């Protein structure tokens, strides 16, 4: 090897990523090239220094504790949570540690029946807080997906206004099947669709236009408490609308008038109730 080692080669050398053949050639070159040897040494020094400088931020103990509790409780969403857990949404100021202990002390003095009633109520509230936090995260994810689509300015993965083209495209890509409405509300057109992931599960992102407003309608299998119920939410000027039809979950997001968005969601929801054979 007569040429100097490239920056990529020097980096890979410092990272231990060269193949045996490349390493042999590099070693041979370094034996006779002081310049590259110096650079290789510098790469190693830089790597070591970056490794140290890069460990800069550490989560607060409260946040770590919160995450640990979230993980423990996340697997038992159907079970009520303990009153002292201080669950999501996360912000240290919202934690009720001292208040919880004081409340517990008062409850000890109260009658057994009163304590039971209060505990049931607290558990119910905290349980609903967890669902609310999950819902909030779900809405944010939906919003982010829609925003990414708008910001990306990329054509849909399946670019068609024909439902007979869009629906079959998902065969084998999603573990479920769904229908597209035969007729859409006034001034609404199908633009295409993308395969996406919601809560790490495959989902269809159907793209519509209502006038000049872009709409994403996500169709996925029902999973978790966050998206299983019907809900309406507003997020940063966008409206998010959730519906269910059997095992299918439908969530739409757009900045269009909520009533017009609801018309489209109703149409998609109604289509799920038709015989799949009819919609082909």
């Amino acid at each position: 090897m007569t040429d100097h080692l490239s920056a990529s080669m020097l980096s890979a050398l410092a990272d231990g990523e060269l193949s045996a053949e490349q390493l042999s050639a590099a070693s041979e070159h370094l034996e006779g090239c002081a310049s590259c040897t110096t650079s290789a040494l510098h790469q190693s020094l830089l790597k070591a220094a970056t490794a140290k400088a890069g460990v800069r931020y550490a989560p607060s103990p409260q946040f770590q504790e919160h995450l640990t509790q979230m993980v423990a409780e996340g697997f038992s969403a159907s079970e009520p949570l303990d009153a002292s857990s201080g669950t999501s949404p996360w912000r240290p100021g919202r934690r009720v540690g001292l208040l919880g202990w004081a409340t517990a002390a008062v409850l000890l003095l109260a009658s057994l029946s009163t304590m039971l009633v209060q505990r049931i109520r607290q558990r119910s509230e905290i349980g609903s807080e967890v669902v609310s936090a999950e819902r909030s995260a779900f809405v944010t994810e939906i919003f982010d997906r829609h925003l990414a689509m708008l910001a990306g300015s990329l054509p849909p993965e399946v670019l068609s206004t024909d439902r007979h083209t869009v629906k079959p495209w998902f065969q084998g890509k999603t573990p479920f099947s769904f229908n597209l409405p035969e007729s859409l509300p006034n001034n609404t057109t199908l633009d295409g669709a993308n395969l996406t992931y919601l809560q790490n599960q495959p989902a269809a992102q159907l793209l519509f236009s209502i006038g000049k407003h872009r709409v994403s309608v996500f169709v996925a299998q029902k999973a978790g408490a966050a998206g299983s119920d019907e809900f309406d939410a507003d997020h940063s000027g966008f409206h998010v609308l959730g519906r269910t039809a059997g095992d299918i979950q439908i969530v739409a997001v757009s900045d269009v008038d909520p009533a017009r968005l609801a018309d489209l969601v109703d149409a998609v929801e109604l289509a799920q109730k038709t015989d799949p054979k009819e919609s082909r």
Partner: protein
Amino acid sequence: MTVLPWKRAVRRKNSRESGFEDLALPLFPALYNLAFWLARNPTDAEDLVQETVLKALRGFASFEPGSNFKAWIFRILRNTYLTSRTGLAARRTVALEDELNDRSESGTSLYPEGAIDRETPELNLVRLADRALLQAAMEKLPPPLLEVILLCDVEEMKYREIATVLDIPMGTVMSRIARARTALRESLTAGLTTTREFSA
């Protein structure tokens, strides 16, 4: 027979729970560190990590036991960051720069001889000993270069793992790491010059 990830049998709840905790808890500090570097403020970093953990919790059934959990959860973090508002803004900001760099790489020589630092190791040691200077240089890196250098040097991931996390080819990982280190060297050189001017 290949089984699709979402069709895999659901494991028992208790083993799943302890499995996730065992794998995820030790990674919280690392996830937070990367999240903070990318988001640049504690509130967004906490939100990013919390959302990542929530997504990982929900998607853990689709995680293949025995595969690389660290790469899996870091990929979730990175994708969550990309679709966040700060991530989208950062992507738009660096898109042009990234494009230009890629274009310049298409020439015959990726890095001309003059671009490679040939200074003495002693001078390099002086610069690298200044942790604050290096951190300032890292802050100046565009997100695509910062994330790759953090995954490589701080998280000690192999190029193959980084390619999985970032969903880019190995060759791109290599070139980004080299570019990141070149940029760091340039920043450090500039920083040292400024420091000397002030002290003179």
